[in-house]
């Protein structure tokens, strides 16, 4: 019951934010010169003015901006995301098609970054200022400083062009039809390189945070007590330090779920994955307002739910948080 209450409060608090975000994005896109018909003309390589006028009417662009915004919000109230002008079908179905690759990629790379960030962070903290720490910290810095498109391209060159171990792009093999476990394996092999590329950058952040947080907790009084009562170092770390040191890591996941949706544009383009990031980019270039607002809406929902889960994990890790809230 307490969880439901928390969920309800969270949701209520996020609705005004969501509406503000949608109105903001709508207005921002009005400031961008050109509309979806201009973008379409650019793509077609020409067209006459009469056709353009007819198309504007067709897409509802002949209305005033407040009227367009009003229409949009009214449709949203009825849970209708509208019609995509580039795809010629409802925005909701366009987004649903694109959601699985994005979610798969996001979950895989977040898990990868979180897990290895944790492990390397702990190793670095335990060997602080000795060679494992220096090595891990340097590598982390290198990963963090490398642009993801370069990483992606180099990964393709090495693993796909030279070694030919992994496919260079796409979501699944088109040549042969696979089902069941073979399809899962096929998709997994296509996702290895994108996951590594997207995950490595985040890995660096996680390991830095984990290292700092471990070092801080290791110096607290209760750790000294644990050591004084004769526990060996491994037990001290796993049972007493880790749990408390995890809190900032969990916070970071909540914050980065959003960043990862945005950050995947580059990775999706390099690996030609049909995800949400690329769809968002295309909608901006094509001035497809409905699709873009739909993506903002869905992403906001995703971020809100991730943060909700993060809150639950908080409560589990540190009971004081729910008691106080």
């Amino acid at each position, binding site marked *: 019951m307490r969880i439901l209450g928390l969920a309800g409060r969270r949701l209520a608090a996020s609705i005004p934010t969501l509406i503000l975000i949608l109105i903001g994005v709508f207005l921002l896109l009005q400031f961008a010169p050109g509309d979806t018909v*201009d*973008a379409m003309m650019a*793509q077609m390589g020409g*067209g*006459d003015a009469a056709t353009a006028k007819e198309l504007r009417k067709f897409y509802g662009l002949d209305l005033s901006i407040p009227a367009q915004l009003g229409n949009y919000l009214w449709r949203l109230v009825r849970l209708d995301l509208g019609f995509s002008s580039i795809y010629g079908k409802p925005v909701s179905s366009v987004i649903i098609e694109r959601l699985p690759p994005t979610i798969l990629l996001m979950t895989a790379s977040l898990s990868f970054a979180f897990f290895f960030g944790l492990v390397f962070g702990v190793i670095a903290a335990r060997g602080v200022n000795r060679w494992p720490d220096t090595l891990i910290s340097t590598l982390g810095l290198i990963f963090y400083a490398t642009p993801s498109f370069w990483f992606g391209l180099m990964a393709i060159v090495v693993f796909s062009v030279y070694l030919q171990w992994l496919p260079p792009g796409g979501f699944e093999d*088109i*040549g042969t039809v696979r089902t069941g476990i073979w399809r899962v394996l096929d998709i997994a092999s296509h996702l290895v390189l994108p996951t590594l590329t997207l995950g490595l950058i985040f890995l660096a952040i996680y390991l830095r945070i984990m290292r700092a947080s471990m070092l801080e907790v290791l110096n607290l009084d209760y750790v000294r007590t644990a050591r004084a009562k004769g526990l060996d170092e491994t037990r001290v770390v796993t049972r007493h330090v880790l749990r408390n040191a995890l809190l900032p890591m969990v916070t970071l996941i909540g914050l980065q779920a959003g960043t990862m949706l945005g950050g995947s544009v580059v990775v999706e383009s390099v690996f*030609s994955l049909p995800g949400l990031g690329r769809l968002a980019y295309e909608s901006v270039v094509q001035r497809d307002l409905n699709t873009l607002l739909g993506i903002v809406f869905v992403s906001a929902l995703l971020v809100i739910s991730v943060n909700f889960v993060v809150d639950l994990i908080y409560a589990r890790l540190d009971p004081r948080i729910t008691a106080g809230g």
Partner: protein
Amino acid sequence: MDLTRLEINRRTALLTSAAIAANVINPMQAFAQETPRKGGVFNVHYGAEQRQLNPSIQASTGVYIIGGKIQENLVDLDANGQPVGVLAESWEATPDGKTVIFKLRQGITWHDGKPFTSADVEFTAMNMWKKILNYGSTLQLFLTAVETPDAHTAIFKYERPMPLNLLLRALPDLGYVSAKHLYESGDIRQNPTNLAPVGTGPFKFVKYERGQYVIADRNENYWRPNAPYLDRIVWRVITDRAAAAAQMEAGELHYSPYSGLTISDLARLGKDKRFIVSTKGNEGNARTNTLEFNFRRKELSDIKVRRAIAHAINVPFFIDNFLGDFAKLGTGPIPSTSADFYPGANTPQYPYDKAKAAALLDEAGFKAGRGGTRFSLKLLPAPWGEDISLWSTFIQQSLGEIGIPVEIVRNDGGGFLKQVYDEHAFDIATGWHQYRNDPAVSTTVWYRSGQPKGAPWTNQWGWEDKNVDKTIDDAATEVDPAKRKALYAQFVKEVNTELPVWMPIEQIFVTTITAKARNHSNTPRWGSTSWHDLWLSA
């Protein structure tokens, strides 16, 4: 930056290479002893997804590259750039030029089994080409009716004379036929067939997964004997150019059309034996780089200033150092690849001469003020390609040297068209002019006055010249080919004198294709054609 260094005699180099090209006999004969192999999957790089795939309602390479294999046109161009019948077997025009009769090929069926007849041609011409198709609506403006006395005759009736050579050179792009029975009810633009096209072509549409791929399989009932050779074509959506180059190398792609890779990757893969990198097969898709002047700026309305700007830019240097072998010096709006209309280089030209540029500006009354500045300009580059970006930076630096500081304002596609062709919020702009085999299709609109505001790639410069307008109008309805050619030569002379738009660079798209491909790049618009004779060697 010293722009004079490294300058070579470009003209000599060009003449030599043209002479060599003229002596090369059809290179396809080298493969003549090989027996065509049936089967295989051909993987194509698809860089920019379109909103639909039907070439009857959208004239762009992004549609032809897929739709052109599934649907067919009335006529196409042969290896020498001359019209050759596809769905039309023969044609003739009445002497007054107001009637054109097409005899259609018989016994052809649509992919769904229904017969192809003159009713399809009539429906497509009147409802798609005349009303929806970009450039088609201008071409067919005076088309009043298409009469169909029998199932294999289509008689096009025009209100004003339609030059037969114009129609035949425009129809390869603007003459794709759609099935009447699939389009006659409902809004044509919203018809689901647009995303699952049905045609008469050598390949049948199978599946389109947005953001990923399009698949088409061989049409067993295709009307040409023994064609096609390929079992399947797969178009893979890859938006990142560098990633596409890597996929070519990994063997996942066989073909990247229309300069789809970066200039540096084209140069690199060109040295690799596994690939052929060439402009061949793209002669029908020539384009020129432009410099567009806004006459609403009083400085630019002065002819001396426009000429000074042209004289200030060292085009041969730019081409040699930035574009390499894939571009050459242009001489005006009609490129040298257009055998039927190219007037030669004997029209007013503006070779690099910095001193002359400065003198012209002084003469026009724009003397260098404090800090050497005369006046400043805002330049809007189109986002279509790497070359435009490089060219705009080159313009900026060149004009800076004669005391005209230039601010570059970058936009994406929609934004660029809006600001230049609708809001006129630019001083100078630069992009591509696409030449479509006849100047009346998409070239003269850059100069003819009276273009509605907001029509992209048209005269929005605030410039009007009665003589030029008259030449353009006369040429558009002149039925005698020789007289038309002379009129267009006069047109180039006039617009090169007045210089509302300067077109100093000619480019042809670059193709990257696997060395295993046979019968490729053998017509001037090969990427857009049906590929009925394309095959892959083992």
